[in-house]
């Protein structure tokens, strides 16, 4: 067990693994950031040490609700092939072997299309003349800092450079940075969608919260997210946001899919107004604590099974 003093600040990890909660959704704009930021604050206020990693690197918004004092900023690079045309004899081995069509010999000269190069190194190791080398290309940055609101809450934010396409590798770097810090719980604010970016953000989590809305669009995209989540074998809880705004019955669907609706946030114009100006519902709406506690209690139950000490922490410090 770790000492309680350590929980007062996030310190560099020494083998202690936090409980990892991923907050995701197929559809955009369902309330992932709303849920992730407010849960993080609920727990930090209850005495837990909390890490919040914003993995929506194309549109990172958590920091707008939880400003932090940045104490570390890292540039993230990814490898791309870089040929030396002087040494190249235009044999075409690289172009034949590249699985992504990222290397071509054009007019006797090797050309690399950096946007589609995966940096796998196959062309480098197979070039008979040693003409293929590698260089690093900046894709974005990862910043981290303690939230101004609470010493017990640290934010890690990945931010993709505009025009760059390698979001998944930046998401990987964001999670690596987050996992260097010690905490009771790590909350991952995932990007929308179900492709490689979403996979990179939610993999190896201990639990997955899927935030949806009671609309035909929300239901359709929830179905895709459930497929992804069950492929990964994660415990899944569904949160219905803007509950009551439409006739679509998420609960019926969830029952048929054998997943639980573990929380509901009502359709309430005040929530939209608080969010619009960058506020937190846990601070401004008295009822918000009970909506969030319902979600939290599901997470406590999951943690009970996979990480009992984290579950104890969650329960004890949440004052129950």
């Amino acid at each position, binding site marked *: 067990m770790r000492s309680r003093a350590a929980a007062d600040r996030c310190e560099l990890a020494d083998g202690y693994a936090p409980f990892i909660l991923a907050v995701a959704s*197929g*559809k*955009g*704009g*369902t309330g992932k*950031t709303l849920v992730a930021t407010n849960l993080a604050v609920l727990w930090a206020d209850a005495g837990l040490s909390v890490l919040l990693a914003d993995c929506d*690197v*194309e*549109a990172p*918004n958590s920091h*707008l609700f939880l400003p932090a004092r940045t104490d570390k900023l890292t540039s993230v690079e990814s*490898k791309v092939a870089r040929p030396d045309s002087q040494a190249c004899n235009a044999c075409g081995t690289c172009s034949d*072997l590249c*699985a*992504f069509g990222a290397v071509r010999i054009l007019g006797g000269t090797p050309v690399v299309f950096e946007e589609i190069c*995966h*940096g*796998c*190194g*196959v062309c480098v*190791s*197979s070039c008979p003349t040693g003409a293929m080398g590698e260089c690093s290309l900046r894709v974005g940055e990862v910043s981290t800092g303690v939230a101004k609101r609470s010493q017990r809450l640290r934010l890690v934010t990945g931010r*993709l450079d*505009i*025009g*760059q*396409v*390698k*979001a*998944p590798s930046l998401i990987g770097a964001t999670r690596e940075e987050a996992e260097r810090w010690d905490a009771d719980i790590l909350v991952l604010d995932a*990007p*929308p*969608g*179900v*492709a*490689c*970016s*979403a*996979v990179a953000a939610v993999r190896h989590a201990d639990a997955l919260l899927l935030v949806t809305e*009671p*609309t*035909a*669009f929300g239901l*359709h*995209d929830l179905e*895709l997210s459930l*497929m*992804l989540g069950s*492929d*990964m074998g994660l415990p899944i809880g569904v949160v219905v946001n803007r509950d009551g*705004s*439409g*006739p*679509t019955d998420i609960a019926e669907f969830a029952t048929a899919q054998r997943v639980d609706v573990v929380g509901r946030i009502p359709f309430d*114009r005040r929530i*939209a107004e608080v*969010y*619009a*100006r*960058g506020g937190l519902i846990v601070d401004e709406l008295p009822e918000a604590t009970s909506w969030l506690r319902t979600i939290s209690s599901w997470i406590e139950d999951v943690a009970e099974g996979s990480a009992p000490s984290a579950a104890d922490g969650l329960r004890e410090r949440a004052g129950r």
Partner: protein
Amino acid sequence: MKSVVIASGKGGTGKTTLTALFAHLAAKSCCTVLVDADVEGSNLPIALGVEEASCEDFKGGAKATVDTESCKACGACQTVCRFGAILRDEAGVYVFDQLSCEGCGACARVCKAGAIKMETGAAGSMCAGTSSAGRMSFGSLLPGEDLSGKLVTEVRRLGLKEADDCDADLLLIDGPPGVGCPAIAALADTDLLVAIAEPTVSGVHDLARLAELAYRFDLGVAVILNKADLSAEGADWIREFCAERGLPLIAEIPYAPDIAALPTMRFGWRDYEPGTASPGMAAVVSAWRAVGGLIGVDSRA
């Protein structure tokens, strides 16, 4: 023919709802082909209904698989894999993680036992069909697959082919959220990017990132402020941002119950006729006229 992409950095700002309404309006005066370029959450077919869709498989990238019988457990594959896709379990057996595999084939090249095969399967589908507002192309990526951007490019190409076949005036594209690979694929060779912004801190932050992307690609941008009355302060942020950057703010659409209710109607709104009964719908009509004016397409509706 002109092409317009409806996009937003932030998700859930109303891209699909507005695309569907614009499609209904466009169908009255010009021949339009629709493209749903959000292959990770394809919702335009739900909004407009699609009949007689013909679909084909979208081939994904290859994935490495190992034949554990012939594997000699030398570990060469694991050394050469840069994506952490090859793990060694407690029993010393090499396990290939399909979700991490990027299909480069480096492992298969170094395997002396010939135990590794690269296999290609379907990673999704792409379709074309007839919607209530014209021909539409759309696609769907299987959950967990990569190559989202490539499928967007294919779906867009399918839409272009449809547009050529019927000599369309307009290609109307419902874009994906974000500014990464799928968004860039959707924006390629477009005449106008219509950015849907919401009056929130996230909305203005993500609009700024999308506008920056459009600037890099030298694309014309017009902004629509959606759910405009949700926050007076937020609406001012969007207005100020547009004024500073010289971006035309072509419409402000209030948060209107009749518009907000549309996505909740699973099969109802394919027959929906946008009227001008509500202030929200009047704003949608004027937004559509402004878009038509900017690209020189008849949008009298």
